[in-house]
């Protein structure tokens, strides 16, 4: 990252994202207008807390999509993370042990999916679909019905009136920057863009991809841990909606399905757009039903917009 090339490279990556950033800002402005309380420490904290889980799973999905993979097991992994957190933290392991258990479980499950999909050359979409059943089953075995507990001080720390969630998110983004500077991180884009070419150039393609799966599992499980801290207990099916939302956020953020295309900042902005949208619709008094309809329409419009504008340029 030496000086002269860094900013031009960043500008290049931002290209095509300005439209998204503008839409996100517009929605944020609308939200702040509807709900002036947003512009306070408490308001920001609450909003960051509702955003963080979606942001984490969007990162988890984006990492995989950048390498040309995809995961349908994200929701199940979120549930598993929540369940493990709710059952271990009040036990003998304590909070640090609980966090470690969630992290290890996420990494192990992600790596397992990765090894099967990459080493055995099976299509990712169907491997992770099968894995989703297995992971959801494990979550149900650990905690058949909502229950468990998170120590009160830990919940207050993460989901109280402090913007800790925002710090965590910034931390995650910084760690991603650091990861991109490691050999495996550098291989990530190459493995997604042109796996054969990258392999011939000596890039550890398989290792980069399996690592992406492991990191994706880790992020999803940690999202589950945060949700458990938020709700104060564990629920074995709480993560279900996250699978599809993570894909939607990543695609809104310009991450392509074929690998090598897109940026993490785009995926995070996409998740921000989704979560602001849900909040704004809630404040406008949309019924949950109308929210479904609007969400479907907005996703289509947002994704179709670049194509429509290209038509107009062509005419």
């Amino acid at each position, binding site marked *: 990252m030496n000086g002269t090339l860094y900013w031009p490279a960043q500008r290049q990556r931002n290209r095509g994202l300005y439209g998204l950033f503008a839409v996100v800002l517009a929605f944020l402005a609308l939200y702040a207008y509807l709900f002036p309380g947003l512009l306070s420490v408490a308001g920001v904290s609450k909003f960051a807390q509702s955003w963080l889980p979606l942001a984490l799973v969007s990162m988890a999905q984006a990492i995989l999509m950048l390498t040309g993979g995809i995961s349908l097991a994200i929701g199940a992994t979120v549930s598993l993370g929540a369940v493990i957190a709710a059952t271990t933290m009040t036990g003998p392991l304590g909070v640090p042990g609980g966090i470690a258990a969630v992290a290890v479980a996420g990494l192990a499950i992600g790596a397992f999916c990765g090894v*099967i999909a990459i080493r*055995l*050359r*099976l*299509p990712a*979409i*169907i*491997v992770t*679909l*099968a*894995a*989703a*059943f*297995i*992971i*959801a*089953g*494990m*979550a*149900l*075995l650990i905690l*058949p019905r909502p229950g468990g507990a998170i120590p009160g001080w830990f919940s207050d720390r993460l989901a109280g009136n402090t913007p800790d969630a925002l710090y965590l998110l910034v931390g995650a983004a910084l760690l991603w920057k650091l990861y991109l500077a490691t050999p495996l991180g550098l291989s990530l884009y190459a493995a997604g863009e042109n796996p054969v070419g990258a392999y011939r150039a000596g890039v550890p393609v398989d290792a980069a991809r399996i690592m992406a799966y492991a990191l994706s599992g880790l992020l999803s499980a940690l999202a589950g841990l945060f949700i458990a801290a938020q709700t104060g207990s564990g629920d074995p099916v709480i993560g279900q909606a996250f699978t*599809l939302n993570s*894909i*939607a956020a990543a*695609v809104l953020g310009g991450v392509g*399905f074929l690998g090598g295309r897109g940026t993490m900042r785009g995926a995070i902005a996409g998740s921000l757009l989704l979560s602001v949208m849900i909040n704004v619709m809630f404040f406008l008094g949309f019924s949950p*039903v*109308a*929210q*479904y*309809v*609007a*969400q*479907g*329409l907005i*996703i*289509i419009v947002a*994704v*179709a917009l670049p*194509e*429509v504008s290209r038509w107009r340029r062509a005419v």
Partner: protein
Amino acid sequence: MKDAKSTRFPPWRPAALLRNRAFLTLLIVVLVWIVAGLAKPGFGSYGHLRYLLELAAVIGLVAIGQTYVVIAGGIDLSVGAIVTVSAVGVPLVALSGDSSGALAVLFILAAATGIGILNGLGVAYLRIHPMIMTLAMATFLQGVLILIAGGTAISAQNPLLAWLGNARLIGIPAGVILWTAASAIALFVLHATPFGARLFALGANPIASALSGINVRTNTMAVYAVSGLTAGLAGVLVLGMNGQGYVGIGDPYLLASIAAVVLGGTSILGGSGTYAGTIPGAILLVTITALITVVNASAGWRSILFGSLILLLLLLSGRDSQRR
């Protein structure tokens, strides 16, 4: 002169059958049925197998469209919602003077096809990725459905549906006959018409097929329309078998249809595969579910077993689908 014709296809070899994935899947189904029939008396009885086929018919119908879309290089995540639309919609559009109920069914099938065409419009003209387009469509439909139907189950008073769900012709359920007929048409269209050939071309290489004069947009719209139609047909059958429709009735069929397609050896990347493999794939899925129910385990273990079995079958039948 004579050999000019015979070189069109490779000569027949029995060993080639063992490399045919559709046949392998069928073989697995037969093996599972025999083993389960011996281990668990009653599993192999005619009545039980017939019941399994009836359940497989719904998955099989949804999977016709899914097979087409996947072969053409896409994926349809809205089939579950379309099944629900059709199962909830038929009782809602009960028209006066429509004593047989056929008009309502035709109307809903047209609506389902229309939803499919909308999917195709988004994919072909707006160039939205199929996964996102159909996902957004599913979200949209879910909202509309709750708006229209609410949380209650709606009973159907439709003679045609009652017949479809309960009638037996020479001992064979009407649903299975419907599935057989639909399968025959689907296989014919896929393997013996220009449209079918275009689907394989589209899935294998969209740019090359566009350059060779295939109208990519029209064919993409047609393939999603077929998917909407077969999902609608499956919804009608589900309604006939259940007697009532409710929001969420179609949800299980989304993943089941994709799993059936992949277990049947169709490449999820498009360009290769056959519906002949999807048929045993659908039967296999239903059989696995039935076996797991027989084992009488907790919900968690059932889910783990189901996922592991799919992974295992994938290892047997789905190997080189990424190695083209």
